[in-house]
């Protein structure tokens, strides 16, 4: 379980997070919605300990991430995978090496690595591209390789940082279908940050709205029409999901 308690973060004079509170239960898939520049990625980076908050706690399975030493943080991160907005593939490595890297770090045998990489590429529908470099891939393929790298270590928590941004509608939809498929894998808790309202409703059990530095509403995706806050209703209207 992930519990975010009263999280604050500023960069210089700019206050980005102003007391975020959120609980994500095991096996739950939640999408954090918000406009560009609202601090969605900043929020997600706190969950995995890439950023330290000015105030507040991030409790993962009973452990406060903000108080861990670097060594313990690396240990904890082995339960996580993070899908970056720009895929963040290592451009000096082939697709195979990119996906194999987390397994090498964990000391898997070469045979096990090979079979897991093949399985991950099969899941994202990209078999046969093992020897290509990231520069040889399209934007959508890069994102799918990023997803393959994220799932290859079979994490407990999958964090997605705007995985469909910058993609055409069809490719974005394919990625959303893939995210839904991955989220439904046994034992995975998915946290997606996005401004794509339709993708959020399709992939996640719950949606939460981050607005002006705080989470103002959390509702079940299938009951989206019961949204109370005008900001979330506006989001739903923008996606054509509520009447204007």
């Amino acid at each position, binding site marked *: 379980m992930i519990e975010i308690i009263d999280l604050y973060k500023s960069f210089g004079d700019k206050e980005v997070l102003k007391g975020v509170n959120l609980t994500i239960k095991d096996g739950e898939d939640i999408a954090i919605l918000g406009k560009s520049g609202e601090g969605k990625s900043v929020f997600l980076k706190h969950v995995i300990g890439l950023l330290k908050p000015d105030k507040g706690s991030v409790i993962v399975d009973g452990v406060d991430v903000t108080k861990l030493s670097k060594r313990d943080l690396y240990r904890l*991160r082995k339960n*996580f995978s*993070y899908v970056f907005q720009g895929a*963040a*593939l*290592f451009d000096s490595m082939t697709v195979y090496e990119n996906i194999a890297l987390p397994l090498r770090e*964990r000391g898997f045998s070469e045979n096990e690595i090979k079979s897991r990489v093949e399985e991950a590429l099969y899941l994202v529908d990209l078999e046969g591209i093992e020897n290509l470099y990231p520069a040889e891939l399209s934007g959508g393929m890069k994102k799918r390789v990023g997803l393959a790298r994220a799932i290859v270590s079979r994490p407990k928590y999958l964090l997605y940082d705007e995985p469909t941004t910058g993609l055409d509608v069809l490719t974005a939809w394919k990625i959303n279908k893939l995210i839904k498929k991955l989220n439904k894998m046994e034992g995975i808790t998915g946290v997606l940050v996005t401004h794509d309202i339709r993708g959020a409703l399709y992939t996640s059990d719950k949606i939460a709205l981050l607005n002006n530095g705080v989470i103002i509403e959390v509702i079940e995706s299938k009951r989206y029409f019961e949204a109370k806050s005008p900001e979330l209703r506006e989001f739903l209207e923008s996606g054509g999901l509520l009447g204007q």
Partner: protein
Amino acid sequence: MFRLLYLAAKGTGQAFLLLWESILSIREIGKIKRPFVEQLEFFGVRSLFLVSLASSFVGMVSSVQTAYQIRDYAPLDLLGMGVAKVVMMELGPVITALIVAGRVGAGMAAELGTMRITEQIDALETLGINSVRHLILPRLLAGIIMMPLLVVLADFVAIAGSAVVSAVYLDIPFSTFFSGIRTYFYPIDLFGGLLKSVVFGFLIAFISSSFGYYAKEGAKGVGIATTQAVMYSSLFVLMADYILGVILYG
């Protein structure tokens, strides 16, 4: 003014933190085999041609200009000795370091800076991989190991180039040239230069990696990091050269 001082202090603090984390990550040295070999190749093997070419010219011009300076008050038989000493103690390590600072230092800063702004360093961290151990430690070790080897090559090529020019241009036979070197050779000449090269290799790798690792503000930031890496690496090489010169030969 205060802002500049603040930025300088912050940069120095970050650099020393990076060094400390690199030292701590030595306990996981077994996990860096692959990046370490890649860095050995990048730092050393790919510098061979440039270092050899530059050193040959350094050796050749040293012969011509040393002959010009000593011709009126010392026998030209001592030319080999003079050139060899200046190459081993000073020119070999310093010229090699400046070439490497330009080639390798810029490459390291640009690569790490690009990795930083494209979130590849964050990606390593999220995979539970210590980015300092994976990226900085192999570069520091490669710098410390490859620099003395490059300097040995540079010394050899420079002295050979000098011998050829002395024979062709100044009519000094090889036997005379090399007997001068043998007669006045002191091990400290060579080993002092090699000690300098270890320090230079460390400085170039450390300064360049540090600027790249902490690069920000997109492509412009990578450009700034690359320029500063070369500038400060070269500057610190020359400063360290003076300090080590005083300690070793003063």
